[in-house]
C-alpha cells in the first residue's frame, strides 16, 4: 500500500517537469542569441529570419536616452539590409556590468556593450573585449573627424579601446533673474572659487541658497582636474598602474575648502545625491547656482520659470583653468563572438558617429556630439540659436587643455573611490574637518587599489 502511494506523486513530478520543458521549448524560439551554434571552430553569427546578421547592443539608458537610442537603432536597421541591431536595456551601469561578467568573453556576450567611463580600466583588463583600434586600423577609419578631447579619455597608450558614446561634462548653471536681483551681472558668471563664494553670499536669501553641487564624486574630480590636479599617481594611472590616490593634495584641499567655506557661511545648499532633487531645487528657486551635467542643460532651461545662464565650472584663484574631463559612457565590442557579428558592431558604431546621427543624439539628450561636424547640421544650428547656452558646454570642452589631469584618471576601482568621495562630502557638510574627511577617502581608495593590484594576475 505504501509502495503504491508514491506513484501518483511521481506522476505529479513528471507533470511538473513536462510543464517546465514545455516552457523551455517555447522560449528558445524567442531568444536566438543563446541558440547560436557553439559546435565547431568557427563561430556562426546569429541571423534573423531573412538572413541578416543580428547583434545585441546592451545599454543602460533609461527614460529619454532610451527613446533616442531606439530611434537611432531603427534608423540603422533601415539604412542597410545586412545587419540587424537590437538595443536592449540592462539596468544601471553597475547592473549591466554584472550581467556582462556572466557572459563576457563567450559567444553569448552582446556584440556591443555600453560601459560607464570609470569602467574603462576594468574593461581593458577584463579580457572580454576587442580593442576598437584593431577595427580602426583595419578599416583605415579617420579618427580625426571625432572630438579630440573626448577621444583622449578613452585612449590608453595611444590606442582607442572603445567608441565614445554618451559624453558629457559638468557646467555651472545659474539663475539670471536672481543675479539681477542681487545686483550681479547676469551675463558674467563668477569664474573662480572666491568669485563664486562672493556671489553665493550675495545671492543667498531666506528662500534661496547661493550655490550647490550634486553629492557625486564626478564633480569633485572635475574641480580637481580643472586646477591641473591629479587623482591618482602614475600620471593619473595613464603611465602605469596607479598605486595610490593623490587627490588629498592641495588641489583637492582647495575644492573641499571651497565647499566648506560656503557650507559654514550658510550659502551652500545640500540637495543630496539624486540628480532630480538638485534640479527641482534650482527650478523652484531654492538655489541660484549649481553644477550639473551638460546633458541636464536642456531640462534646466525648460523647467525653470526664469532665465537660465550656463557657465564654465569654477577653478581655484591661484591657477589657470585647465578645463574638464569627459564623463558618460562608451561602447565596447566583445571578443569571442563571431567575426560577422563584430563587423556588424563596427558598422553600427561607424553609423553612430555620422554627423546626422550625432546631431539627433545631441538634440534628443543634450549629450555631446562626438563628431563635431554635427554642430553644423541645420537642426543643431536652429536649436543653438534658440538656446545659446548649449554652445557654452561645447566651448568649455573644446577649450580644455589636454594633459594628464584633464584626460581623467584610470583606475579599475573608480566606482568604489567615488563612493568614498560621496561619504567625504557628506561628512564635510556635517561640519567635519576638510582634510580629515579627504584623507579618509584617500585611505579607502588606496585599500581598494591595493586589493585590485594584489589580485590581478
Amino acid at each position: 500500500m505504501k509502495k503504491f502511494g508514491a506513484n501518483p506523486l511521481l506522476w505529479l513530478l513528471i507533470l511538473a517537469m513536462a510543464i517546465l520543458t514545455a516552457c523551455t521549448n517555447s522560449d528558445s524560439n524567442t531568444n536566438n542569441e543563446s541558440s547560436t551554434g557553439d559546435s565547431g571552430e568557427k563561430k556562426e553569427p546569429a541571423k534573423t529570419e531573412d538572413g541578416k546578421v543580428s547583434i545585441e547592443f546592451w545599454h543602460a539608458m533609461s527614460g529619454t536616452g532610451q527613446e533616442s537610442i531606439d530611434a537611432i537603432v531603427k534608423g540603422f536597421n533601415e539604412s542597410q539590409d545586412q545587419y540587424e541591431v537590437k538595443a536592449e536595456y540592462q539596468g544601471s551601469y553597475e547592473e549591466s556590468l554584472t550581467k556582462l561578467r556572466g557572459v563576457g568573453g563567450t559567444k553569448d556576450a552582446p556584440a556591443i556593450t555600453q560601459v560607464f567611463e570609470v569602467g574603462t580600466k576594468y574593461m581593458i583588463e577584463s579580457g572580454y573585449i576587442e580593442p576598437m583600434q584593431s577595427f580602426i586600423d583595419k578599416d583605415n577609419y579617420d579618427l580625426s573627424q571625432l572630438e579630440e578631447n573626448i577621444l583622449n579619455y578613452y585612449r590608453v597608450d595611444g590606442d582607442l579601446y572603445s567608441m565614445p558614446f554618451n559624453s558629457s561634462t559638468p557646467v555651472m548653471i545659474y539663475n539670471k533673474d536672481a543675479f539681477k536681483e542681487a545686483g550681479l551681472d547676469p551675463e558674467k558668471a563668477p569664474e573662480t572659487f572666491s568669485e563664486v563664494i562672493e556671489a553665493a553670499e550675495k545671492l543667498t536669501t531666506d528662500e534661496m541658497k547661493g550655490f550647490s553641487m550634486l553629492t557625486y564624486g564626478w564633480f569633485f574630480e572635475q574641480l580637481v582636474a580643472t586646477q591641473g590636479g591629479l587623482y591618482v599617481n602614475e600620471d593619473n594611472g595613464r603611465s602605469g598602474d596607479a598605486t595610490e590616490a593623490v587627490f588629498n593634495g592641495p588641489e583637492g584641499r582647495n575644492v573641499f575648502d571651497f565647499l566648506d567655506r560656503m557650507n559654514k557661511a550658510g550659502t551652500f545648499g545640500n540637495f543630496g545625491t539624486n540628480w532630480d532633487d538638485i534640479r527641482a531645487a534650482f527650478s523652484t528657486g531654492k538655489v541660484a547656482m549649481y553644477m550639473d551635467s551638460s546633458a541636464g542643460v536642456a531640462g534646466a532651461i525648460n523647467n525653470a520659470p526664469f532665465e537660465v545662464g550656463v557657465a564654465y565650472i569654477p577653478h581655484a584663484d591661484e591657477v589657470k583653468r585647465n578645463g574638464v574631463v569627459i564623463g558618460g559612457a562608451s561602447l565596447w565590442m566583445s571578443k569571442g563572438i563571431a567575426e560577422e557579428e563584430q563587423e556588424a558592431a563596427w558598422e553600427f558604431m561607424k553609423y553612430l558617429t555620422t554627423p546626422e546621427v550625432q546631431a539627433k543624439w545631441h538634440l534628443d539628450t543634450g549629450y555631446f556630439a562626438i563628431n563635431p561636424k554635427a554642430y553644423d547640421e541645420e537642426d543643431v544650428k536652429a536649436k543653438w540659436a534658440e538656446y545659446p547656452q548649449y554652445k557654452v558646454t561645447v566651448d568649455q570642452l573644446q577649450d580644455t587643455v589636454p594633459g594628464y589631469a584633464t584626460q581623467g584618471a584610470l583606475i579599475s576601482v573608480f566606482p568604489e573611490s567615488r563612493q568614498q568621495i560621496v561619504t567625504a562630502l557628506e561628512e564635510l557638510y556635517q561640519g567635519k574637518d576638510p582634510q580629515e574627511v579627504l584623507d579618509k577617502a584617500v585611505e579607502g581608495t588606496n585599500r581598494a587599489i591595493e586589493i585590485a593590484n594584489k589580485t590581478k594576475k
Partner: protein
Amino acid sequence: MKTSLPAKIWLYFLLIVTSLCVFFPVLYAFMISFMTGPEIIQGRFFPQTFNLENYTKVFDRLPLLNYLLNSFIVSISVMLGQLVVCSLAAYAFVFFKFKGRDFIFFLFISTMMIPWEATMIPNVFTIRKLDWFNTYQGLTLPFFALAFGTFLLRQHFLTIPKELHEASQIAGLSRFKFFWKVVLPISKTSLVTLGAYGFLTTWNMYLWPLLITTNQSVRTVQIGLKQLQSQEIATEWGVVMAGVIVVIIPTLLLLFIGQKQLQKGLSQGALK
C-alpha cells in the same frame, strides 16, 4: 452587542482619517500621473485637467502590455510551483514520522534567514550555466521552494485532527490519496493565502528579473518602472507616476477581490 452612537462617530472618524493616511501615497501618485511638468514643479495636488498624455507616453516608450503579460505568467507559475512544492513538503513534515524530521524542518526554516541578496550572485552564475537566461524557468524555478510557505501550510496541516488520518488509513486510503483528497481540500484557505502571497511577492520582484534577462522577451513590469527614470537627463515625474499606477493596478485589484480570503488564510499560519 451594540456600540453607542458617540463611540460610533469616534470610530468612523478614526477609520476615515487613518485609512486616508494609509491610502494617500497611492492617491497622490494617481494625481501626479495626470500632471504636466510645470504643474508638478508648482507642487499642486489636483491636476488642472485629467489628461492622459503621460499614460500614452508610458505605453509608447515601453512594451508595457508585454511586460504585464510576462509578469502574469511568471507570477502565476511561481504561485502554482510554490503550492505544489510547499504543500508536499508540509505534508511530509506533518504526517510522516521519520528520523531527522525536526532537523530538516529547522534547515528549511533557516533558509528564511539567508538574505536573498547574499546568494544572488552565485545564483546568477548557476542560471547562466543552465543556460536559463531570458527564460521563464530562470525567473520562476528558484522561488518554488519557500520556507515561509512550507511553514504556513504546516501550521494549518497540524490543525487537522489525527483521527482523520487514522481513519483514512483504516479505510485503506494511500498516503497520496489522503493528501490529495483530504488534506488539500481542508486547507483551501491556507492554499489560497499562500497562492496570493506568492503571486504578490513575485509580481513585486525586481532585482532578480533584471539580472537574468538581457532582452525584452520575458521581462516583467517592475523593470519597466526603472526604465522610466533617467539618471543624467531629467526624469519626467508624470510619466514615471503613470508607470507606477499601471504597475500597481493589477495587484491592487487582486487584493481588493481576494482580501477576505487572504486575511482568513494568513492568520491561520500563526495558529498552532
